[in-house]
């Protein structure tokens, strides 16, 4: 849907299924303030849209415990729904914890197109956590030139979810979304 001046499709009053579909459609379109090329749906943090009695419930899960983007996305979501004459209660869902594996295929393509390398598969975090004494050896391809074997220059970057890499071929630095 277009973002500005969106006109909700005509629905029959009391048509719960249509309302839920519309809330879902609007919820999915909310962008991440830190990674604006990604929407809530791309990130995989929209955990469900449901009806509870007369109320519409939108369930979101935070990416990192301290990521301030979630608060912004909640507000933006409420704003967009209000603009379409809708209201939904936004609930936080903590379990299961978000994993970078939930970033969709479309989300990964958008990240790469924006020069940010998408994450490798997340490690299993159910049992003992192995210690890593050398910088992470991931097979990260450069999102600019496509060359494999980029080297990590820093384990953290401008947001909680990213690390810094440098391409071995074109020497360009780029960000990488960490697997978690």
């Amino acid at each position, binding site marked *: 849907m277009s973002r500005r001046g969106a006109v909700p499709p005509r629905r029959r009053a009391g048509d719960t299924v249509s309302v839920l579909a519309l809330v879902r459609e609007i919820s999915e379109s909310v962008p991440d303030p830190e990674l604006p090329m990604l929407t809530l749906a791309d990130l995989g943090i929209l955990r469900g849209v449901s009806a509870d009695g007369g109320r519409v419930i939108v369930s979101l899960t935070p990416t*990192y415990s301290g990521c301030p983007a979630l608060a912004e996305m909640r*507000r*933006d979501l409420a704003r*967009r729904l209000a603009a379409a004459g809708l209201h939904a209660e936004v*609930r*936080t869902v903590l379990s299961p*914890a978000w994993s970078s594996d939930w970033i969709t295929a479309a989300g990964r393509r958008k990240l790469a197109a924006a020069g940010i390398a998408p994450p490798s598969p*997340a490690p299993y975090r159910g049992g003992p956590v192995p*210690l890593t004494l050398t910088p992470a050896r991931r097979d990260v391809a450069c999102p600019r030139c496509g060359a494999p074997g980029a080297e990590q220059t820093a384990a953290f970057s401008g947001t909680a979810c990213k690390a810094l890499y440098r391409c071995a071929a074109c020497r360009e630095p780029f960000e990488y979304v*960490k697997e978690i």
Partner: protein
Amino acid sequence: MGFDTAYEAIAEEADDGHRWAFGTGFTDPLAGVDTAVPEGVDGADLGAYCLMLGDDALVMSHRLQQWLARAPELEEETALANIALDLLGQARLLLARAGAADGTGRGEDDYAFGRLEREFRNVRLAEVADADFGGLIARLMVFSAWRLALLAALRDSRDPVLAAVAAKGVSEVAYHRDYAAQWTVRLAGGTDHSRGRIAAGIAAVAPLTGELFAVTDVERRLNAAGVAADPPALRAEFDAVIGVVLAEEDLSWPDVPALAGVAGQAGRHGIHTEAMGYLLAELQSIARAHPGATW
């Protein structure tokens, strides 16, 4: 009306006028989460336990934030800021959980900004100031190795909120521990000077380590109820991890006595070091000078 990005929404001042920056105007981090206290669990105990774990994260986060604009490299400053942010997020969830469990209905800000030093339940390891980057890395390594073992154990807690916060925290603290462990090895294997700094850092934190594995009455009762971790049971994993890191460059763990408490009491009982008062003065001064202010 809709907005293309959240920044745009802020710039247009379309909100309620109480905000001036990205990330402010916080809402309850547990909004919509079922915070009922599990059957057979004492709510006051659960609240007290969440304060312990939340205060560890809050106070450690504040110490890390003090490194901003002081770290040796921009990359390290970014790393420390991100680690501080992760811990602050964990603290927010845990303090909010405390208020929902202990029946007082207090929010995260009430706990963070409205309590006196004696009411903070963090271990003293979290509050001490770092002499230098080597001291910071040694302290962060010990803190992260211990907290990771603790959170890993809590993934099976009978309190579903605590279990969820712990499961999420494990993934985050795993990165913190790797960061501190890798820097420990680099400093130890660098110059005589850098090796001396990390060795001094380890010597400084060693006396604060025993307290991490002591048990309070609250933990004893909650462990029996299947909610809390058993602190002494975390020691084996902690020793194994620290042992691997130190062995990499042949560092050794100093044989030093534990820092004394007062009549057997320490951080978990609200008995802190001199550093704590200064830390809280900085953390709380704005909130105390302008109670209830919003921005």
